[in-house]
Every structure is written in structure tokens, then in C-alpha cells.
């Protein structure tokens, strides 16, 4: 149980898909202009990631290596479409405001990367926790980005006016350059936290590892 919890925690900071592995950045930059979109996208991606990882991990011995990529894509595309349809039916407003980025989860590198690097080789339970951890790691980053961007760029949070009416919204933060700036600042904060976590781990386990490299098990590199 402790091991599974460790896998889950890994995705939050130490192996965060956006801040450490640095994949799936384009859609995260595009949807984080409002908090509602950030949460929606986070949940959508977590759903697709967890379901795809679990299914592929369960069938991993029945997937021939030479055609694993098309099979991964079929599975991911199926779950993305399911989620797209469900969102259209039950959360039409959210589905409308995110538009094309929902179907684009199919080609999101995070899903493909985790399926290929992790769940195609690991047991189901491990994959489940990896998917949850990575999904949550993705979601909190989107939330962090969108809170700053919506607050400064629009003066609102979840559509509610927060800033006083005298506050002139800084459109810069809604635009891509502002997104990159907020992203890099959050990344600096997250990586300093990661460094501290790894440092304390080294003390306990007395592992020889530089503070700045990826974890020794190599999962991140393969992704």
C-alpha cells in the first residue's frame, strides 16, 4: 500500500507531467485562461488517462509489441470520445467553452507517454495509481495556472468578480506570453519543492543522485 501511495505521489511533484517531464504543454497553455476550463480539462484528462492506463495494463500481455502504438491510440481515442459525448450530454456549457481541446486529448502526449512508458509494462494496480497521480498532478498545475491567469487577466475567479471594479484586467495574462510567464514561475516554485523532497529522500535512503536529474528508475526519460 505504501508503495502504491508512493507511485501516486510521484506524479504530483517529483515526476509532474507538466513541470518535470514537460509534455502536453500546448493544450494546458490554451485552456488555462479560465479556472472552469482548467478544472474541466484536468478532470477530462485524468479520466482518459486512468481508464487508458488500466485497460492497457490489463491487456499488456495481449498487445504485440510491433502494433502497440495503433492499439494504444484506439483505446485512448475510444475513451476520449466517450468523455466528449458524456460532457456534451451532461456538461454542455463546459464542453462548449473548451471546444476542440477535448477531442484533442487523443493526441495529448501525457496519455500516450504514460501508457507507453509505464502501464504497458506495469501491473494494473500500479497503473491505476500512476494514472491518478499523473492526472492529479496535471490538474493542480492547470488550476494553479488558471487561477493566476483568470484573476489577473480578467479580474474574476470561476466567473465571479473578485478584483475591485477599479482594477483594469491585464489582458497580457490571458494571451500566450502571459501563460508562459505564469507557467515558468510556477515551475520554478514546483522544482524547488521537488529538489527539497529529493534531498530529504537521499538522506533517508542514502542514494547517490544529483538533485537536478530525473528519478533513477528512468520512467521519466522514457516518457
Amino acid at each position: 500500500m505504501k508503495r502504491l501511495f508512493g507511485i501516486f505521489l510521484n506524479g504530483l511533484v517529483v515526476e509532474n507531467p507538466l513541470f518535470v517531464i514537460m509534455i502536453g504543454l500546448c493544450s494546458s497553455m490554451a485552456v488555462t485562461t479560465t479556472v472552469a476550463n482548467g478544472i474541466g480539462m484536468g478532470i477530462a484528462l485524468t479520466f482518459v488517462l486512468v481508464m487508458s492506463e488500466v485497460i492497457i495494463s490489463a491487456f499488456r500481455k495481449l498487445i504485440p509489441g510491433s502494433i502497440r502504438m495503433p492499439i494504444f491510440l484506439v483505446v485512448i481515442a475510444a475513451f476520449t470520445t466517450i468523455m466528449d459525448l458524456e460532457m456534451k450530454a451532461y456538461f454542455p456549457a463546459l464542453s462548449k467553452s473548451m471546444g476542440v481541446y477535448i477531442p484533442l486529448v487523443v493526441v495529448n502526449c501525457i496519455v500516450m507517454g504514460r501508457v507507453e512508458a509505464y502501464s504497458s509494462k506495469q501491473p494494473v494496480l500500479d497503473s491505476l495509481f500512476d494514472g491518478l497521480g499523473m492526472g492529479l498532478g496535471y490538474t493542480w498545475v492547470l488550476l494553479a495556472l488558471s487561477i493566476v491567469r483568470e484573476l489577473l487577466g480578467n479580474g474574476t475567479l470561476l466567473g465571479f468578480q473578485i478584483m475591485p471594479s477599479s482594477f483594469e484586467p491585464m489582458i497580457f495574462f490571458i494571451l500566450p506570453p502571459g501563460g508562459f510567464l505564469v507557467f515558468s514561475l510556477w515551475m520554478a516554485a514546483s522544482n524547488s519543492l521537488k529538489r527539497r523532497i529529493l534531498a530529504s529522500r537521499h538522506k533517508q535512503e542514502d542514494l547517490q543522485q544529483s538533485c537536478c536529474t530525473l528519478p533513477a528508475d528512468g520512467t521519466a526519460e522514457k516518457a
Partner: protein
Amino acid sequence: MKRTQMFKLGLILAAYCIVGCVGLAFVYNGTSKTIAQRQQADLQAGLKEVFPKATSFKPTDKVKSTNPKIVIDEAYLAIGSTGTMGTAVKAHGPSYGGDTTLIVGVSTDGTITGVKILENKDTPGLGANAANPSYYVNKATKTTFAGQFAGKKLTDEFVVKKDVLAITSATITSRSITSIVQTVAKASADALGIGGSEQDPKAVLPEADTIRPAATPMTAPAGVTVLDTSVGTKGGTVVGVVATAKAKSYDGDVTVMVGVATDGTITGIKVVTCTDSLGSSILTADFAKQFVGRKAGTPLTVGTNVDAVTGATFSSKGATALVQQVADALAKALAGGGL
């Protein structure tokens, strides 16, 4: 050996696809009804929003778009207690990030009763604010981008940053949607039989007190289609002629109405429609005003004696060339008599 291996892999892939498709088919079956219901409810709510007092909506096929890029999806006559109140039209047309779908309501007195944006695919946080009910282009009065069209007269100019407030950092979205609204509203007005005043030849020949159709239509210059020729009289004497003509412009058509007095002076012009991309910005009165007083027969050139509308230089050139051709032909017709 190799061949059997290939078949085996193909079959395995096919098996995964079949399982995936069956799963999707179940989900689609389960959700398609709800999705269709939602869209229908959205449409009904949208129609109700632009015509709150209407009791029923009757489908009509009379509304025709004049711009091939702007498509009328569905058109309804709004029926109230006093009969037909106007039209509510669902249409879509190109915007910054894809098509925007909206509903435009036009009442029988030539006023837009409301605009509701159903779908917009522009940049989230910028252009997408067109469909955001809590994004105000005028914070003091809490007017949304679509909301500002309510109460607007069809005879207004529909020019972004002039009589239409733009969405911050989304000028292209603002212009595109304004152009869709204007085109749809005009098409609705035509269907309702209230053409709007821009069809009134008196606007370009103010001196005349009566306008009658010309006995013989104006001879069309090459490449120009003459839609209408009229003669303006004052107290029985001919004071000028008015013609409406259409010609190719940058990537669409431009239609202008030109009035010429008996002495060959242009009394006024009106750009009726322009289907160029971003061409609707030349429909302004400012652009038309500069032709007043010019003599037919003198060259009109954009850049030297005609100012182009910023962002629509090619459309300005197209319209200017057409105005010149029509004015020259009218002057010739006046000299020849027989009108």
C-alpha cells in the same frame, strides 16, 4: 511465415477496433438523445430570448443569405398575440477560430430584437468572450457583446469600434460576428418585406421628391450587373438618375447605389452590400460621403482622391471602380435622354 504473422497482427488490431467501436456505439446510443434534446432546448431558449413575447415559432424558408459564407440554418417567424412579430434566424458564418453559430431576431419595424451566440470556437478568454454572458463590453450598463445589438436599427452602420463595441483583444471576432449579424438581419428584413432604407434611392438623390423606375434601364458597363435604374423628379422635372449595380470585388461582390444629377455631379452613393472578407467595413457613411459632389467622367482613384477604409483597401478599390463605372454610364444615359 511472415505473411501469417502479418495477418495475425491485422486481426489483433481489428479485434481491438471492434471492441472499441461497440463500446462507443453503446455510449453514443445512450447520450445522443440527451445531446439532441439539449441542442433543441438551447435553440428554443435562444428563440425565446430574442422574442420573449412570442407565443410560437413557425418555420419559414424565405430568409436567404446574400453572402455565400454566411449560411442560414433555420429560420422562424415569431408569432405573437397580434400576429407575426418578426423573424428569428439561426445562422453560422466564419469567425477567427472557426464557424460561429448565432440566433438573430428582427422585428417587423426593422429593429434587431436580440442576438444570442450559440457556438463560438474562437480563442478561450478572448474571442470566446463573445458568447460569455458575464463578459461586458460596457461594464457600466452591463451590456454583453451580443447584447449590444438588441434595439439596433437595420439602417445603422454596424462598424466595429464605431457603433459596435469591440471585445478587447478580439477585433477580428468582433468584426466577423458583427458582419454575420448584419447579413442575417438584412436577409430577415428582406424576407419580412421591410427592405430597410438603404434601398431607398432618395438617400442618394435627396433633391428629388418622387422616384420612378426608368423607362429604359441603364446600359451596363462590362463586368457590371445593373439591378435597378430609377429617375428622380422634382415637380415633374427630371433632377437626376439613380442606379443600383453589382460587380466583382476582392473575393466577393460589391453592390452600390449611385445617384447622379442632371449636370453630371454625383449626388450620393451608398455601398449596399459587400461580401468580401472584412469588406463590410466599407459600408460606412464616411466612405460613401467622399463621393458626393464629384463629377462623373473625372477619374476616381483610391489613394489619390479617394480614401480607402483601413483594413479593406481592396474592397475600397472595387467599390470605387464600380461607382465610377456606374456614374459615367448614368451621365451618358442622362445625356442620351429616353429615361
